C-alpha cells in the first residue's frame, strides 16, 4: 500500500522513524500552526531585503540556454504581493536572481553521523561500537583522518570529482534531544524553538521575491511543505502526477473545472485556503506539459529515490526551480544497526539507499549539476556508544554534507574527537547555520542574511569554507 507516494519512500527500510515534516505544531505551545499564518506576516514585514550580487539574470540564462522552452511557455507567474501583503515591498528586483539551485535534503530521525564519516584509527570509536563501527579497512578514505561508509560509493565518487564536502560535529548550540524540537529549530534556521514561525528558506525566498514569482520557484516534495520553506509560496506535492487535475467521468472538461476553481478560490474564507488554492490552479497549468507522463526511467532507485525523482525531472526539464526540498526518513536506529560491511544491515541499507538516490539524481540532471548544490542535514547525531540492543540513542553532533556545484571538497570545520564529549555524545562545535549561510551567501550571492538568520553572524568570516564559488 501507499508505495505511490513520495512521502512514504522510506517504508521499506524504515523502523519507527521520521519521513515527514511539520510535526511540531501541536506539542509546542509557542509554535502552534494557527499563529503561523498571522505571525509569519509580521515576521515577513520585519524582513529586510537580501541583496544579491550576481549580474546573471535567471530568466535570461534560461532563455539563452534554450533549456526547457516548452516548460517556460507554460510558465505561470504568481504575484507575491497577493500572498504577503506589503512584505514583498522590501524585496529586491527579481532580475538579479541567479540560475543556481539549492536542494535541501533533511534526513528525519537523527541520522548517525559516525556512520557517514568515521574517524580513522580511533580506538574509542571502535571500542564503543563493537560490531557497528566502520572498520578502518572498509572505510572509503576521505583524507588521512576520516573515511566514508562503505555503502556511500556515489558520494565517494562525488568527492573524487571535487563535489562533496563534509562537516562533522555539526548541529545546534541548543542541546534539546527531542527529534521534533531539534528538527523545528533546524528548519527555522534558529537555535531557539520559539522565536520564529517561518523557515530559513521561506525567509530567503520572501526577501528575494520579485514582482512576479514563478509558481515553481520553490518546490517541496512530500505531502506537506518542508518547514524550512514556511512563509513562502513553495509548492508541496508528493509527485508530479498528483498535480494533474482530473475531470474524468463527470462530463465536465478539465478546462471547465480549472475555470471554476480559478473563480472560486479567490473568495475562499481563509487566507491559507485562498493562497494555496490560487497557487494550485496556477501550478496545474504550468506543470501540465510534463505531469501526466512523468515517471522515472527504469532502474530509478525506489525508496529515497522516489522523493528525488520529481526534483530531478523539474530541473532537467528546465523549470526555473531555485529551491527544492525533500525529506528522507528512516534514520532513528535505536536498535540493530548492524554491521557497516553487511549490505543487509539496517544502517548499511539506509546509507546505501541515500547514496544510490543521490547518484541517480546527479546522473539524471546531467549538465544542470553544474548549477545545483545539495545540502544534506539531520536534526542531531547519535550516541557514540551503542546501547544494549545494538542501536544508538539520541546524541548531539551530526554530519552535514554539501554536494554538487561550487563545493570546496573535503572535511570542514573543527573536530573535537570522541574523548572530549558532551555526556557521551559528539560535541557540537560547528553551528549548522554557518553552512546554510555560506551556501546562501556564496552560491546564491546573498549579501545580507540578517533577516534569514536573525541574531546569527552570517558574515563570510564566520563561514567554514564549504563552498568555493
Amino acid at each position, binding site marked *: 500500500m*501507499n508505495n505511490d507516494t513520495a512521502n512514504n519512500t522510506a517504508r521499506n527500510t*524504515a523502523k519507527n522513524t521520521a519521513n515527514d515534516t511539520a510535526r511540531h505544531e501541536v506539542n509546542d505551545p509557542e509554535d502552534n500552526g494557527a499563529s503561523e499564518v498571522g505571525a509569519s506576516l509580521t515576521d515577513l514585514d520585519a524582513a529586510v531585503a537580501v541583496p544579491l550580487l550576481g549580474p546573471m539574470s535567471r530568466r535570461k540564462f534560461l532563455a539563452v540556454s534554450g533549456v526547457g522552452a516548452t516548460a517556460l511557455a507554460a510558465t505561470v507567474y504568481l504575484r507575491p504581493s497577493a500572498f504577503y501583503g506589503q512584505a514583498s515591498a522590501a524585496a529586491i528586483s527579481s532580475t538579479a536572481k541567479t540560475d543556481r539551485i539549492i536542494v535541501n535534503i533533511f534526513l528525519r530521525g537523527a541520522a548517525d553521523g559516525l556512520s557517514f564519516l568515521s574517524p580513522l584509527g580511533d580506538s574509542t570509536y571502535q571500542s564503543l561500537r563493537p560490531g557497528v563501527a566502520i572498520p578502518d579497512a572498509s572505510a572509503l578514505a576521505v583524507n588521512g583522518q576520516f573515511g566514508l561508509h562503505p555503502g556511500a560509493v556515489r558520494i565517494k565518487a562525488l568527492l573524487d570529482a571535487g563535489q562533496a564536502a563534509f562537516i562533522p560535529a555539526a548541529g545546534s548550540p541548543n542541546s534539546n534531544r527531542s527529534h521534533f524540537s531539534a528538527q523545528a529549530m533546524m528548519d527555522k534556521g534558529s537555535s531557539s524553538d520559539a522565536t520564529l514561525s517561518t523557515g530559513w528558506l521561506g525567509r530567503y525566498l520572501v526577501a528575494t521575491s520579485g514582482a512576479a514569482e514563478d509558481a515553481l520557484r520553490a518546490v517541496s516534495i*512530500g505531502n506537506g511543505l518542508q518547514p524550512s520553506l514556511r512563509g513562502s509560496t513553495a509548492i508541496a506535492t508528493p509527485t508530479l502526477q498528483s498535480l494533474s487535475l482530473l475531470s474524468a467521468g463527470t462530463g465536465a472538461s478539465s478546462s471547465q473545472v480549472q*475555470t471554476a476553481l480559478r473563480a*472560486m478560490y479567490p473568495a475562499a474564507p481563509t487566507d491559507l485556503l485562498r493562497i494555496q488554492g490560487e497557487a494550485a490552479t496556477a501550478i496545474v497549468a504550468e506543470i501540465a506539459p510534463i505531469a501526466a507522463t512523468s515517471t522515472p526511467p527504469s532502474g530509478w532507485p525506489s525508496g529515497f529515490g522516489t522523493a528525488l525523482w520529481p526534483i530531478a525531472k523539474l530541473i532537467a526539464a528546465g523549470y526555473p526551480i531555485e529551491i527544492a526540498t525533500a525529506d528522507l526518513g528512516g534514520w532513528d536506529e535505536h536498535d540493530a544497526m548492524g554491521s557497516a560491511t553487511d549490505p543487509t544491515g539496517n544502517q548499511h541499507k539506509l546509507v546505501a539507499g541515500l547514496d544510490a538516490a543521490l547518484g541517480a539524481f546527479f546522473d539524471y540532471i546531467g549538465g544542470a549539476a553544474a548549477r545545483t548544490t545539495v545540502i544534506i542535514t539531520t536534526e542531531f547525531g547519535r550516541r557514540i556508544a551503542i546501547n544494549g540492543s545494538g542501536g544508538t*540513542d539520541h546524541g548531539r553532533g551530526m554530519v552535514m554534507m554539501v554536494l554538487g556545484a561550487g563545493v570546496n571538497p573535503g572535511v570542514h570545520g573543527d573536530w573535537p574527537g570522541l574523548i572530549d564529549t558532551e555526556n557521551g555524545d559528539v560535541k557540537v562545535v560547528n553551528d549548522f547555520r554557518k553552512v546554510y549561510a555560506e551556501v546562501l551567501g556564496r552560491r546564491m550571492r546573498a549579501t545580507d542574511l540578517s533577516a534569514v538568520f536573525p541574531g546569527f553572524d552570517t558574515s563570510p568570516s564566520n563561514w567554514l569554507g564549504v563552498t568555493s564559488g
Partner: protein
Amino acid sequence: MNDVDTSIDDSPAESVTPTDLNESAATKGDRSRFSLDRRSLLFGVGAAAIAATAAACDPEPSPPPPTAAPTTTAAPTTTTSIPPTTTTTQPGSVTGDLSAQVLHAARRLSFGPTPALLTEIRSIGITAWIDQQLAWESIDDSAVEAMLTSYPRSLMTAAEITALGSAFRTRGEMAAATITRAVWSRRQLHELLVDFWSNHLNIDLNHDPSTRHKPTDDRDVIRRYSTGRFADMLVASAKSPAMLLYLDQALSRADGNRLPIENYAREMLELHTVGVDGGYDETDVKEVAYLLSGWTVTSRNDGGFTFRSAWHKMGPLASGGDVLGWKPNGLTGVAAGESLLVYLARHEKTANRLAHKLAVRFIGEHIKPTDAVVVAAAQAYQSNDTAIAPMVRSLLLSSEFRSSAGRKMRRPIEYFAGLLRAVQLQWDPARSTNLMSSVTSQLGLLGQIPLSWETPDGYPDSDARWTTAGAMVARWNLATSSSNGFGAPAPQFDASRILGTPAPSTVGEALDRAALALLGEPLEASARTAILSASGQTNTTVWKPTSNARALFAYVLQTPQNQMR
C-alpha cells in the same frame, strides 16, 4: 466546569428524555410538517428537510427562516440574498443562529454533516447530543460492527492474525475499518476521539512487527479509554505489545553492562505526558529508561506483555533521585513503573498539554495553552482524576467552541470520510475491497492513511501542514472521484438522494439542492456563480433527467466551503 457558558439554550421546544435519544431523530422527523417516512426525510429530500427543519426549529420567533426551502417555489433560489451561515455568528456571540450552531457542531464533532445528522442534532439539541455522544457505549452501533467483519484482521488479536496468515493485510484492513467507522458509525464523536488518541499515542501500522498488534491496541487501549481515565489509557499503552515494539521498549535490557534503550522513555515524557517543556532533563530520561527496563513481550509476533526481571535494573533511581518529583518509595518492578505513569498522567503539565491539544483539535489553532478555556478543561481533567470525558465536555460547551466556526479546516481523513458521508454512499459488503483500495490509494496521495504516521508524534494538527497547493489538486481530484460514490452502483449511490424528489426543474435549483445536501448550507455566492459560469449554464437552464448531476456534485465538493471543518 463552572465557567462553561450554557446560556444558549439549544434544546428544542419539546424536552427529550435521555431514554428517547436513540429514537428521537426519527420521531422528530415524523412530527415535522413533511408527512414523509423516515427514510424519505433523511435521504430522499435531504436538502429540503434541512431547510424546512431549520425554519421550524429556529429559536428566534420572529426572524425569517435562515434559508429558503428550494421546493417551495418554482423560481430559482438566489443564494446571493442568503447570508452564509458561517458568517452570521459573531465571534464570542452567545446569540448565534441555531441553524449555524447545529451545522458548526456537525462539522466539528463528526466526520461531516449529513441531512440525517443535522436533523438528529437539531431534534435533541446540541448539548444533549454532545452528552449522548460522550456516552458512546450506550449508542447502538451494531450496523457498523457488522460492516467490520469485512475486514476481519481489524478485529483480531495478534495470535489470531498469525493463525489466519497474510498479516500484512492488517494494514489495509485496519485503515479501511477506521474509515468505515468514520463514515457510518453513529458514535461520531467517539470516532473523532479515537482518532485523537490514536495520534497522541501514535503507533505506525506499517511498523513490523507492531502491525499485527495494532488492532489489539486500538481496541484495548485507544477505544476502551477514549473517554475514560487517561491514567488507565497510559498504563495500558505502556503495556501494549504494539507500543512496546514500536518504540523499542520490548528490546530494552539493562542486565550486565547493557544500557537500556531510551526511546520509549523519552517519547512517553515528551509526547504522551508532560511535553518537551515539562521540566525533565536527560538524567530523567535515562532514569525512566532504567525504571522500565524489562517491560517486554512474551513473543514478538503474537505475545502479550510481560516483565522480565532478568533484564531489569532500577538504575539511578535506586540510589535516590526523582523524576519530576516522583520517587519509587520502596516500589519495584512493574509496580514502580505503573506508579510513575499514573503520576505523570496526573501531572499538571500533562493536564494542560492534553487540554490544549484537544482544544486545538476541536476549537482551533488560535487557542493558547494559557487560555481560560484550556485551563478550565485541564481543571476538569485533574478534578476528575484524569477522566477524559469531563475535559472534552468542558471544551465543547465553551463559548470559544461556539464562536470557532470557520476557524478549522478538514484534514485529509476528515475530508475523505466527509465526501462519502456527503454523497450518502451506502455500505455494500461486496465493495469492501474497493473501499479499502480507495482508502489506501487516495489517502496515500493526500498523506494521511489512518494509523500510518511513521513517527511517534502522530499526524500534525495544523491547517498549514495539510493545505498546500499539491494537496489542493489532490482534494479536487478526490472530489471528482467521489462524486458518484467511487463508482458504486445504485442503490449504494443514488443521485436522487442528493437532488431530492421530485427532480429539480432548473439547474439553479439542482445546484442549490446539491449544496444543501452536500454542504449543509447554501453555496457562497461567488462559488455558485463560478460553477454556473464555468459549466456554461444559467439559473434557469432547464434540468432534465439526463442532466449531469455528477458534474454539479463534483463542483460543490471542490468548493472552499467543503474544505472547512
